[in-house]
């Protein structure tokens, strides 16, 4: 039983009381909540639509690009060398002097090493390469964050527990306090980022964690955190810390 200390920040009452409580639960992947057919689709690479993106990622890994005319492979060798990497993202990047997501690191390599035209944050090639790199860590546990990520984790935790939007709900109210209960037709998952990028059946598409977070933020009618903003990365970093120990499923299927 892992303990998650959850700070319930100042709530909506007239008095701004700082309250704290702790929630404890066995960490569970959303996979456990899925229908057997959906689980089978994820288990079998031949029926997982996300594998199309992984194939594209393989081609991109080997494709020379930019004014340096280098491929990812020219610096990193076979993509198997990426084993374990996805367990550590978002991670502090000394070169960029900030915590970055795996997608941002891929973008950074493209700009700095390949000197190629940038892709937008959720462009198909970024998703394809993220899926390919993530797949190399499939089955490995998400690593705990380190001191270099501590600030991002703290900021992310505060955002996770802060009420927002016209519905005035926090992430924690659903994913810590009510995980496992029914919200309309959906069981609320604990919200662990173990499978990204995911193929979401509702999207009929491969999508990033950012996109998934936008869905929840739209649900509470809140402004989404701007793409690539420090808040956005901080929440993703906190989610990684909160999920530490769960195995990576990339590329996962979700309903």
């Amino acid at each position, binding site marked *: 039983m892992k303990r998650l200390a959850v700070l*319930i*920040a*100042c*709530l*909506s*009452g*007239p*008095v*701004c009381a700082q309250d704290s409580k702790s929630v404890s639960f066995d960490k569970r992947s959303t996979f456990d909540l899925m229908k057997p057919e959906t689980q089978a689709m994820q288990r079998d690479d031949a029926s997982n639509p996300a594998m199309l993106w992984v194939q594209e990622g393989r081609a991109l890994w080997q494709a020379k690009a930019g004014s340096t005319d280098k491929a990812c492979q020219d610096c990193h060798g076979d993509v198997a060398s990426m084993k374990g990497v996805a367990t550590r993202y978002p991670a502090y990047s000394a070169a960029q002097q900030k915590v970055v997501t795996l997608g941002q690191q891929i973008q950074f390599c493209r700009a700095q090493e390949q000197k190629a035209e940038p892709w937008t944050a959720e462009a198909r090639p970024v998703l394809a390469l993220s899926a390919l790199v993530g797949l190399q860590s499939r089955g490995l546990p998400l690593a705990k964050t380190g001191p270099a990520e501590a600030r991002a984790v703290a900021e992310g935790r505060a955002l996770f527990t*802060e*009420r*927002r*939007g*016209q*519905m*005035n*709900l926090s992430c924690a*109210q659903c994913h810590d*306090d*009510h995980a496992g*209960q*029914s*919200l*309309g*037709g959906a069981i609320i998952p604990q919200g662990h980022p173990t499978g990204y990028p995911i193929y979401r059946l509702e999207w009929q598409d491969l999508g990033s964690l950012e996109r998934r977070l936008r869905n929840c*933020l*739209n649900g509470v*009618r*809140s*402004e*989404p955190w701007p793409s690539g903003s420090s808040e956005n990365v901080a929440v993703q970093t906190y989610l990684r810390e909160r999920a530490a120990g769960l195995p990576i499923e990339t590329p996962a299927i979700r309903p």
Partner: protein
Amino acid sequence: MVSHVLRAASLAAVLLMASPAKAQMIVGDAMPEPLAGAGDAMRGRAIIIDRQKGFCLLCHAAPLPDQRFMGNLAPNLAGAGARYTQAQLRLRIAMPSHLNPDTLMPSYFRTAGLYAVAMPYVGKPILDGQQIEDVVAFLMTLKEPAP
């Protein structure tokens, strides 16, 4: 920090801003003054089941046999009209955060003290006064407790 300060706004201010034309009075655990004209129970039913308008069934079950996919995050609405008066129900829809600041239930008439509201909804309550009266009228018809 800014958001915390915003949220610390006193309830009186919240109420004034929510309804500039006519400040709503909370008396005990009730809101005796109607927010608009007389409610229509059938319109209220439609709002409750609409997943874009009331979305009540995301959290609540209700004695509506034609409805599927009801949540279990909140009390069954069956018998609400027997447990509460009209005025008590009005407060429980319009401003449940007045009764329980930690509540999961959104305050449907609240517009102030909220944080990071998406642009299209800024300054607007989830339901307007007439819609709340309609919802209350429907809840008043739910006299039988859940089996």
